[in-house]
């Protein structure tokens, strides 16, 4: 088989439909993948991008229509079938076995055998081939390292190496840069260009329009389960992409900033705080009405610093002042009582009870308010109706599980939840992660409204544009230390990256 033959691959969707029970998520999608190019797949949450790609990679079955691979109709019954054809999907949440080594993960389900009719594992060959595979994606690690000891970016490279070992000709990446730092993102882009030059077709799903603009040759925009546009990337501006995604004109994403309050006593002042292994000697303050950003690479210790402040992690030095008084916060209960709440970056794992109803989620942090002494579901429902209104949560019914909402609306529920106890200071960790453009704007407006009402807001974010567009000041952390706090007029992407990476 010649090289060209191995890599050329035509994939076409014809009238693909998909229903989950009575809910139709794909309404007849038609498009073909541009062979050997990078395709950006855009759409708001719930537009059907992930479902479509899962059908292509064999994780889901289409309800109707057909999928043609090299002109032949294919019905993949499992991801193994699709992999055999060279189609590999890299999930947003990685599918690596954390306790196995890199080499074991790379060959998981495809182990090399030797001796006695293949009864024994051929560790030697697998290790050698694994080492070569990770070198190809630019990961310099020992293949005997356990995956759980790798950082997120390295895990992603392991996923890509695994796809290449399966001779992937079509590689689908779902939000690959969501958890990467700018440098790691650049490295990934380098690898993507290399793969493209080798003839691999790439599908790149992302909410980050600047990256889509830079990296892709074509974009396909999906909305409400349909493909609404397929155009060369160069022919579209970011604004046009955003408009196509939401199906309406999208005004500027960030509302104008209010003036930074300077007079009042800081709502939160942290001095010399250390969280063992994560943060050393961090001091900062945030005033009522102020929005303070926290920038830094993944692993810089931002999340851990605030978990330390909240009493979710051990801390060994430093003081926390709220409204000018030194306070001892031993656990999140103390923090809530003192008017400080925290929204985790991990919505499904730490932020929201996805199997719970909206009402139970909303009131969980302020439940005593509804106990007289028996809980009053009617009062809780009133509060929910109010929150749905105030936070613009789009839901058909008030009595559904949080999991049946889209990502953006789940995030609004999570926001409403941490604000429900009526805090004076709120810490929002990645408040717009995995949220579509429309919901992002809603959340930005909301944060600004809350700040203007006197709430002190801390935003931890990996999206630099978000920090620049929203914050009065941005603190930059690197390797557990606070490098600098940049004032509004100093806020540029270059400046933030320079401080975050220590190349200032």
């Amino acid at each position: 088989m010649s090289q060209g033959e191995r890599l050329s691959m035509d994939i076409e969707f014809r009238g693909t439909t998909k229903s989950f029970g009575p809910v139709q998520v794909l309404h007849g999608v038609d498009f073909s993948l541009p062979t050997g190019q990078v395709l950006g797949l855009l759409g708001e949450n719930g537009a059907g991008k992930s479902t479509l790609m899962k059908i292509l990679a064999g994780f889901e079955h289409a309800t109707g229509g057909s999928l043609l691979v090299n002109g032949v109709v294919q019905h993949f019954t499992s991801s193994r079938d699709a992999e055999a054809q060279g189609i590999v999907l890299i999930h947003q949440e990685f599918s690596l076995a954390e306790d196995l080594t890199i080499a074991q993960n790379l060959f998981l389900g495809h182990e090399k055998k030797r001796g006695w009719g293949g009864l024994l594992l051929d560790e030697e060959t697998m290790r050698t081939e694994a080492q070569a595979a990770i070198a190809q994606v630019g990961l310099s690690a020992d293949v005997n390292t356990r995956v759980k000891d790798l950082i997120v970016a390295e895990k992603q490279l392991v996923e890509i190496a695994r796809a290449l070992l399966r001779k992937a000709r079509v590689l689908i990446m779902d939000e690959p840069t969501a958890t990467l730092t700018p440098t790691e993102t650049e490295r990934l882009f380098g690898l993507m260009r290399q793969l493209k030059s080798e003839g691999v077709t790439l599908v790149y799903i992302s909410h980050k329009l600047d990256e889509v603009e830079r990296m892709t040759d074509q974009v396909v925009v999906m909305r409400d389960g349909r493909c609404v546009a397929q155009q060369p990337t160069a022919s579209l501006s970011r604004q046009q992409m955003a408009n196509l995604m939401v199906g309406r004109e999208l005004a500027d994403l960030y509302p104008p900033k209010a003036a930074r309050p300077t007079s009042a006593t800081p709502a939160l002042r942290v001095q010399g705080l250390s969280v063992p292994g994560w943060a050393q000697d961090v001091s900062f303050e945030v005033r009522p009405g102020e929005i303070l950003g926290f920038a830094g690479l993944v692993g810089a210790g931002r999340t851990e610093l605030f978990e330390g402040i909240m009493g979710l992690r051990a801390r060994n030095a430093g003081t926390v002042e709220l409204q000018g008084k030194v306070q001892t916060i031993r656990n999140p209960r103390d923090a809530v009582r003192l008017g400080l709440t925290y929204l985790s970056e991990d919505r499904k794992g730490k932020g929201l009870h996805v199997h719970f109803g909206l009402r139970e989620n909303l009131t969980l942090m302020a439940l005593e308010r509804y106990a007289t002494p028996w809980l009053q579901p009617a009062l809780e429902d009133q509060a929910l109706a109010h929150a749905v209104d105030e936070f613009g949560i789009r839901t058909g019914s008030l009595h559904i599980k949080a999991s049946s909402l889209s990502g953006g609306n789940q995030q609004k529920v999570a926001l409403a939840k941490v604000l429900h106890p009526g805090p004076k200071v709120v810490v929002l960790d990645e408040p717009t992660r995995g949220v579509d453009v429309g919901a992002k704007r809603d959340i930005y407006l909301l944060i600004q409204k809350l700040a203007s009402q006197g709430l002190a807001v801390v935003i931890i974010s990996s999206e630099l544009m978000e920090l620049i567009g929203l914050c009065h000041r941005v603190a930059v952390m690197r390797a557990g230390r606070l490098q600098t706090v940049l004032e509004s007029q100093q806020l540029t992407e270059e400046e933030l990256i320079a401080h975050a990476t220590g190349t200032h």
Partner: protein
Amino acid sequence: MPQELTKAAAPAASQAGQWLAKLQGMGPVIGLVLLCVVGTLLNSNFATLDNITNVLTRTAFIGIIAVGMCFVIVSGGIDLSVGSMAALIAGSVILAMNYLSPHLGSPVWTVVLGMALALVLGAAFGLAHGLLITKGRIEPFIVTLGTLGIFRAYLTYFSNGGAITLDNDLTDIYSPVYYGSLAGIPIPVWVFLVVALVGSVILNRTTFGRYVQAIGSNEQVARYAAVDVDRVKLLTYVLLGVCVGIATLLYVPRLGSASPTTGLLWELEAIAAVIVGGTALKGGAGTITGTVVGAVLLSVISNILNLTSIISVYLNAAVQGFVIIAVAFMQRSKR
């Protein structure tokens, strides 16, 4: 807001979902009704008042324990020791009453003290479980597997491998607690009803109950939402211990003795009742009503085995075992 609401997903879909959920919730009840129909067809004695009273009275022990077990399972825990715990409490209470009786002089007060002791012991054992699980950070499965052995071994030791028997004068005073009835309904059934009602109110209408569900659904989310996870978990085990205490103080007057076979396999029956009642073994969601129905359903099965000769009554535990596995099998994809 109305504008937001109309923009939403197909209401038909959510209606169908609600209907399905309701049907699923009715599962245990439908099962119970079918079983009763079968029982009536197989044996004319099944539907008699005597038999029904008998079934409900026997359900009381397991049912009361199952109500406590429901809290533990909904919070994501498990307690395998309840049968042994009941046996040890029964033995200890009988020994204590026999010892106290001559000193106190009043058999009534002795019995009252004995009953109180049952509750205190249950709470203390539950507290020990809770502390080992939360502060000691040991899996509930391991902790209660350990105490399952410990409790029963101590009972066997105290009874020298035989039976511990309550003195006759005390038995006479105590027996109405099991054999007596109020308004035609046996005392244990009344107690079972009260425990179930109180349990239901605690689970559904208190902050504690909501926290129990929140922890079982996702412990990390609960911790981040400022729920005192350790305290709530600890309390679920204390609550279960108290329920075991109540069940035991009803059980002691029935035979007036405790032996190494007392309470054997009660853990299986109690856990099966909770699971059959529709509570997810992974925790997060469950109902007391379902648990009560589950407990009654299991004793109806046992009763039918007793009344008919289709399956040997010796296979009662096997039937319960099959039922719990079958129900867990059906629950697999629910979450």
